[in-house]
């Protein structure tokens, strides 16, 4: 049992931190103010080959595991890029996994390399306005037609849909009433986001303004047969495989954001002198920060345990969920504590921690809420009756 990064993993972390240091705190602050996608950051990460970290070498990736992807995404958030930087490259880093596992070789070669090279951007569309976390009830309908499917429906919260060239879409191909189980009859597609049939509307939201999330209205979108990933009706089973990696990465990012928040806070506390002493000489300032550090590092161990289990092909559902939960809560407390440490200046944009606080709420809510995680642990680990 080893709790430390290997030399190779440390090299990845250092290289990512160094790469990201090109993008200053002011870069992220300005994009957040303008609500402008971090095109330069996205392009530079693609050009340096980082987007394919966990993709196989056969499609232009580096063939590393989710552990390395988590280390990378943590460094991206920790560099000060926060959830803005992380969410701008999330799609390529882990959402393509279903194509690797269930796509044909032709689909893999056609779909994946342009995304890894940064020539195309993608979004991942599951959530719907009228369904919530009860994913199997989604209503977006893909009806069989000659040569493919005709799709109609609505999605919500779809990150990057307004800038994407491609959409990975979960839709119902067999009506719920005609299925034996509610997990059946859903299919997964990866296709052109054809704006003649797909309208996107940005949702005004609390933070991460540079990386928008959208309402998506799909009207008579034709999807050719060759853009369906895996067998018809298998979509739910296919996306389930990607849920654990997504939780692991979000958890790693939340820890990264928490770390940069307490780093900024500690720096301020060393320098700010009030009542003739640095505020950081007061235990009332020290202890909350030290507690945040301990919580973040403990959460990180659970996240990395989940990642290592995933990479060994072991079941990691409980660890991935627990890790995401612990990391998001610890990240939130760290950002909140950082703000209180800075006092009035914590509320000023130029000190950055208020932006972190607005962003750290995202991993708390998405991709799955703390309630649902605790429901899951209660059921699976504590063997309590299923509550949902």
């Amino acid at each position: 049992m080893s709790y430390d990064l290997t030399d190779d993993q440390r090299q990845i972390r250092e290289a990512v931190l160094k790469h990201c240091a090109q993008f200053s705190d002011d870069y992220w602050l300005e994009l957040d103010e303008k609500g402008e996608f971090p095109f330069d950051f996205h392009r530079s990460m693609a050009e340096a080959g980082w987007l394919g970290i966990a993709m196989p070498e056969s499609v232009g990736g580096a063939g590393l595991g989710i552990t390395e992807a988590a280390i990378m995404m943590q460094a991206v958030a920790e560099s000060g890029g926060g959830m803005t930087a992380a969410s701008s490259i999330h799609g390529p880093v882990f959402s393509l996994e279903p194509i690797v596992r269930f796509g044909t070789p032709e689909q893999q070669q056609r779909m994946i390399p342009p995304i890894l090279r940064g020539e195309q951007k993608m979004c991942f569309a599951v959530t719907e306005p009228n369904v919530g976390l009860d994913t199997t009830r989604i209503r977006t309908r893909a009806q069989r037609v000659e040569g493919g499917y005709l799709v109609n429906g609505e999605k919500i919260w779809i990150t990057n849909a307004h800038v994407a060239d491609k959409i990975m879409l979960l839709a119902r191909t067999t009506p719920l009433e005609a299925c034996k189980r509610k997990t059946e009859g859903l299919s997964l597609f990866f296709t052109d986001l054809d704006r003649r049939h797909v309208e996107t509307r940005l949702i005004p939201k609390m933070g991460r303004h540079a990386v928008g999330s959208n309402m998506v209205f799909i009207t008579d979108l034709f999807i050719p047969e060759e853009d369906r990933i895996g067998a018809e009706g298998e979509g739910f089973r296919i996306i389930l495989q990607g849920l654990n990696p997504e939780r692991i990465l979000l958890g790693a990012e939340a820890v990264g954001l928490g770390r940069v928040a307490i780093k900024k806070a500690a720096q301020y506390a060393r320098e700010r002198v009030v009542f003739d002493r640095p505020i950081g000489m007061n235990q009332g300032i020290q202890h909350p920060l030290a507690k945040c550090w301990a919580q973040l590092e403990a959460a990180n161990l659970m996240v990395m345990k989940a990642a290592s289990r995933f990479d060994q092909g072991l079941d990691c559902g409980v660890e991935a969920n627990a890790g995401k939960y612990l990391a998001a809560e610890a990240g939130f407390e760290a950002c909140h504590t950082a703000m209180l440490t800075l006092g009035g200046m914590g509320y000023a944009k130029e000190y950055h921690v208020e932006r972190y606080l607005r962003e750290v709420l995202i991993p708390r809510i998405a991709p799955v809420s703390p309630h649902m995680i605790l429901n899951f642990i209660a059921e699976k680990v504590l063997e309590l009756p299923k509550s949902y």
Partner: protein
Amino acid sequence: MKVLVAVKRVVDYNVKVRPKPDGSGVDLANVKMAINPFCEIAVEEAVRLKERGVADEVVVVSVGPTQAQEQLRTALALGADRGILVEAEADLEPLAVAKVLKAVCEREQPGLVILGKQSIDGDNNQTGQLLAALLGWGQGTFASEVVVEGDRVRVTREVDGGLQTVSLRLPAVVTTDLRLNEPRYASLPNIMKAKKKPIEVTRPAELGVDVARRTELLGVEPPPARKGGIKVADVAELVDKLRNEAKVIG
């Protein structure tokens, strides 16, 4: 032409160093280490020479602890072809490092050796000069431009108040200044490729070099903490204090 580049493992430039309580050295426990920034510039320059077709092989060598392999890997990820680690426990003084590098040069026969002008930990600014002298080769220090022309290298040097250009017969020794180039960021594919590149490990004794210290470190202390300023009533008092207390004007 083969280019040899020396790289040193040092405390990362972002780290605020602290002397050990007994003043016997700098506290390195749990401190982030990195490739010396001037050495990184040297690696970049060598890789650019290779990309321009001037060099055909870039060999990086580090004299230091086992962990200096990390810095060699970093250099390999930037584009160097292979590494040599000359493993030495104690902190070597510049003369010892220069002697080790001389032995490596005699074995490798490079056409050009590039080093950083100094390392940011010891700030000695000696190794390149000592190496050139030991080898009897020309030296172009503080380079801000390096152009290989046939069997000579033209080096633009950053000297006080301006630039000086020298032409040296190859083989020669060049040390880098800050403005020579801006090192690239290692890409993931190159980091992966670097894992497969060879690093040879040897020791000073195997190269027949005696690295015993000639100087003894007596102590390390932090700079004095900055004192708060004072307010003066008028210009006369200011002039008086500058003359009689600070003694900076006559």
